């Protein structure tokens, strides 16, 4: 799969990463290299092999449904840029 500079801009936007025009070409080369590697791997016949979702063959440990956390709002909000009435403040979101 061949990428172009527009793809790079779009991927960067989706990930909210700023990529300047000069960086875009370099990023394109790197990403294309990774895709090339994946293409090579796709040549391997994987018929009948269950896709792996985790590198270790163990299953999820479950937690009992108990409230163990206490209110630490003051502590957490002491490092927030802006708060009011217990709310974290962010630049206005418009839907």
């Amino acid at each position, binding site marked *: 799969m061949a990428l172009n500079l527009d793809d790079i801009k779009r991927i960067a936007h989706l990930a909210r990463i700023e990529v300047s025009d000069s960086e875009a070409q370099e990023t394109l080369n790197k990403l294309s290299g990774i895709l090339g590697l994946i293409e090579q791997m796709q040549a391997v016949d994987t018929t009948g092999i269950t896709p792996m979702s985790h590198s270790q063959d163990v299953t999820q440990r479950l937690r009992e449904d108990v409230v*163990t956390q206490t*209110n630490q709002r003051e502590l957490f909000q002491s490092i927030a840029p802006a708060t009011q009435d217990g709310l974290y403040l962010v630049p206005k979101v418009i839907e």
Partner: protein
Amino acid sequence: MQWEVVIGLETHTQLQTKSKQFSGASTTYGADPNTQACEVSIALPGVLPVLNKEAVECAIKFGLAIEAEMAPRSVFSRKNYFYPDLPKGYQISQFELPVVGKGKITIQVPATKNTEAYEKVINITRAHLEEDAGKSVHGAVEGMSGIDLNRAGTPLLEIVTEPDMRSAAEAVAYAKKLHELVQWIGICDGNMQEGSFRCDVNVSVRPKGSDKLGTRREIKNLNSFKFMQQAIEYETQWQIETLEDGGTIQQATVLFNPDTGETRAMRSKEEANDYRYFPDPDLLPLEVTEADKARVKALMPELPQALQARLVSEYQLSSYDASTLTASRSQADYFVATVAAGAEPKQAANWVMGALSAKLNAEEKSIVDSPVSAAQLAALLKRIADNTISNNAAKQVFEGLWAGEGEVDAIIEAKGLKQVSDTGAIEAIINEVLAANQAMVDEYKAGKEKAFNALVGQCMKASKGKANPAQVNELLKAKLG
């Protein structure tokens, strides 16, 4: 051209757990902002999610209730998007391998003026575990939005149907059925005002007879059945008109405005929909074994379909009565408790669906808040059965129970409603009535049947309604011979 509407639903049900999906923060509704937002909820660096056992059991319960295929191993994935109420920058959800696979739910679509009531099977595509986002609060500070992360990380089960519904009525019937079911099996409180049960409805139209799906628009976050009906009807009409005017439908997310009754596009879906799912490396595959399923099954109440069948076979109720009584778990529980307390089933069914239901509706009360308990109703029905009171008197006793005037026997006593079944006493009344109404007696003897009923009426009146009507009939007939 004849058009057909095609509808599929995605429902977010908030699971009834004490703590969040991946942390030990409380899920209690309505707390002060961010007082239930722990380090996992606000996504501080370095924290790790640990899955809630109860949420998994809720998912298994749902899977068992809809006879679904359940994956022995399911996988959590990250759904990536940026929004301030999602501090991690991704929602933990399930994508390729959901915990609950294909299942089915049978819905009852009510009759309308032009159509009969009917049943239909709606296929469930999947149900997966995920976490809720926080809430944005607008307008508190100029130019800023406030973020409350109390809800962030609350356990959800998202239930997705196949595009199987063909009318707003079917979609609403499905939503209502699902709403009852999740409450019945105790996995969701069903509180729509608090957002515990939210529906997204996918609507598309196509020429009738076509088997290709049209382009769909998704109506987001409907939290009432009435709005759902209105939104689908408006959206369907809008799509048909757009196509008939030569336009095309763009895939979009729309919001329903209850004030105008219209739907409006929120954002075009193409870009927003690129969620770049990938397996979450912080979470291992979730294993659900046959033993887990058996253990959870043992904790579950009898399902509505099973109870319905039992009401028919064990109590000889009609299937209509059985279906009405099992429309909600609370009503079914009330009925079963009434019968268990000694009431005759058919009579209990009539009272629960009749007088009790009417009174509850009139006062907008739920059956769990009924002032008349199942035990009291059973006691009342026993007094009808043993001829202590008449059906008419029973209604007065019921009113008394409702008003909290005491127990059944005390009310019968206080209101003097005890039926007179003493033959001697009734004969005395009849003799008086006959003596005072010679004209009626003559009419009856001349062959006028109506006069007999008038005489029964006079006897009942003379007894202040307390005489046993069957006995009055019998004795009067014998006297007039």
